């Protein structure tokens, strides 16, 4: 497995008397997508800004692939693409020019720049706009260009701060697909979001933060099991054929299944009592049933329930 990492070491950020981050310790390694969750003001964006040297840590270190992103910024960020908030681009530049500027900054060789820019613009479905001035673009179009800019130079590490912010539902769905694509290309993605269904759909793991402190970090199922207060998890499955009553009854009778809820003719939520081993067995059984299983993942509703439990007292 490639050795990509993002690490916060005793990261603290204070704004006067307000502590935005308090001794945050978090290490993400490997190639996966990690969701960064927490209520407004929890410290998510501050963390990502420290990693990109937009904000200075009061104390502690932010490391990307082992390099300090403040002291050794140029090297640390050379393998990291970032999208923080909703950046604006010099309005008189075209996407091609703006991305060429980023490509030049990131040291993409001149011979590869054109193809690299075309590739990322095609990825965000903005290739046909590459010659128009950015100043005339909508917020959603600009955000697509920003995502393209984060992908220039094919970075191994991606820091995304609410990447679907400002996009219409179709745009949000397309960006999710892009991120899923990127995940399959062996990258380490750290993504903050308020949209729990999005995190459930895209991410493998979640880190939860509140009042600048890390509350939990781990696989979504483990977090849901640990913080739901019960040894229970909710799994969403999607199949290729309509689920008959007989099939639903067979699923209901499987070991550990406490209830099922139909989300559509081919999608259901399964409430399961037991930890990861029970989930593994459930997956095996469902495959054996030959029902055309194509999706097996923690349900968004379970993560949402856990989130609400964890942050119910947060302001």
């Amino acid at each position, binding site marked *: 497995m490639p050795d990509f990492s993002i690490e916060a070491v005793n990261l603290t950020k204070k*704004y006067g008397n307000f502590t935005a981050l308090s001794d945050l310790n978090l290490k993400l390694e490997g190639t996966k997508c990690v969701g960064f969750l927490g209520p407004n003001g929890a410290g998510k964006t501050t963390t990502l*800004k420290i990693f*990109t*040297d*937009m*904000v*200075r840590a009061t104390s502690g270190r932010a490391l990307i692939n082992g390099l300090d992103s403040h002291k050794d*910024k*140029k*090297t*640390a*960020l*050379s393998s990291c693409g*970032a*999208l*923080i*908030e*909703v*950046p*604006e*681009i*010099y*309005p*008189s*530049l075209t996407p091609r*020019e*703006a991305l060429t*500027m*980023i490509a*030049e*900054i*990131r*040291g993409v060789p001149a011979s590869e720049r054109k193809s690299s820019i075309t590739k990322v613009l095609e990825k965000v479905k903005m290739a046909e706009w590459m010659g128009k001035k950015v100043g005339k673009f909508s917020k959603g179009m600009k955000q697509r260009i*920003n995502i393209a*800019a984060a992908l220039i130079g094919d970075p191994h590490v991606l*820091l995304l701060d609410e990447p679907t912010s400002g996009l219409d539902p179709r745009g949000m769905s397309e960006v999710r697909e892009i991120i899923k694509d990127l995940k399959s290309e062996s990258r380490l993605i750290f993504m903050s979001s308020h949209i729990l269904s999005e995190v459930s759909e895209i991410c493998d793991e979640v880190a939860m933060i509140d009042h600048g402190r890390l509350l939990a970090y781990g696989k979504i199922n483990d977090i849901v099991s640990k913080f739901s207060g019960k040894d229970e998890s909710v799994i969403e499955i999607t199949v290729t054929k309509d689920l008959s009553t007989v099939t639903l009854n067979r699923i209901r009778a499987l070991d550990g299944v406490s209830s099922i809820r139909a989300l559509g003719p081919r999608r259901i939520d399964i409430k399961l009592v037991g930890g990861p081993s029970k989930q593994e067995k459930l997956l095996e059984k469902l495959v054996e049933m030959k029902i055309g299983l194509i999706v097996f993942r923690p349900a968004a509703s379970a993560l949402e329930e856990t989130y609400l439990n964890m942050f119910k007292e947060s302001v």
Partner: protein
Amino acid sequence: MQTFIIFKYAFMDYFRSRRFFILLLITVIIGAILTGVIGYFRPQSVLSSPLSFYSIWWGGTISFIVILSAVFFGGDAISGEFQNKTGYFLIGNPIRRSSIYIGKWVAALVASLIMIGMFFAITAGNAIFYFGYSAIPYQFLESLAFVLLYLVTAMGITFFFSSLFKTNSMSILVTVILFLFVFSIVQTLVANLAGVEPWFIVTYGASIYSNVLQSTYPAHIAAQNSARIDPRAFNSTLYYATIPEGITIMIVYFVFSTIGGLLLFERKELT
């Protein structure tokens, strides 16, 4: 290298912006008005010699163009990265902040040089029309050199304020007020009321660009005004910076404002 990248794209942005054409238009309009007025009235005080022509035409106007250029191109150069959020597009990349600062500074300077160049061309064109091809005395070229130094200094100061404030309006307002009012008021008060040479005011140092256009370089002149009322209060001296003084004042302002601006930008946070 990264400084050059930022310069290239920042200049492209300036060159295509509305403000560039507005300032170019203002420069051309000023030149056209002067051409029209002097061409129509042919005042003897202006046309008596090439030096008096440059002194009034160039010496009386160029500082306005320098200040406008510095404000138009430098006023929001750094604060705009924060207020307009363009900083989020740039700063998260593997680039030093000093490269962004210097690149933008050079871009603003080059854009301003185009304005100065345009006014220089209009001035020289008129001078040739009235006095022939030999009408470009070395004092005019000396004055141009001091104007360029003044532009560099004014740009340094403007960038300092642009780094200091987070909003464009505040940085532009402070720079305009400072250059158009505060410096000249303080200079007048210090010289006339306190009787002290205002060596610490940048506009005093910069005035060497017009001093060199006098037929004899002016020295400090002690003047006694209205002594009948109160001899002590009305004794005043007209101070003129010497060329070395003027150059030193501008360089000191440039160095301190640039170092200050860079340090502020390095420490500034995108919050």
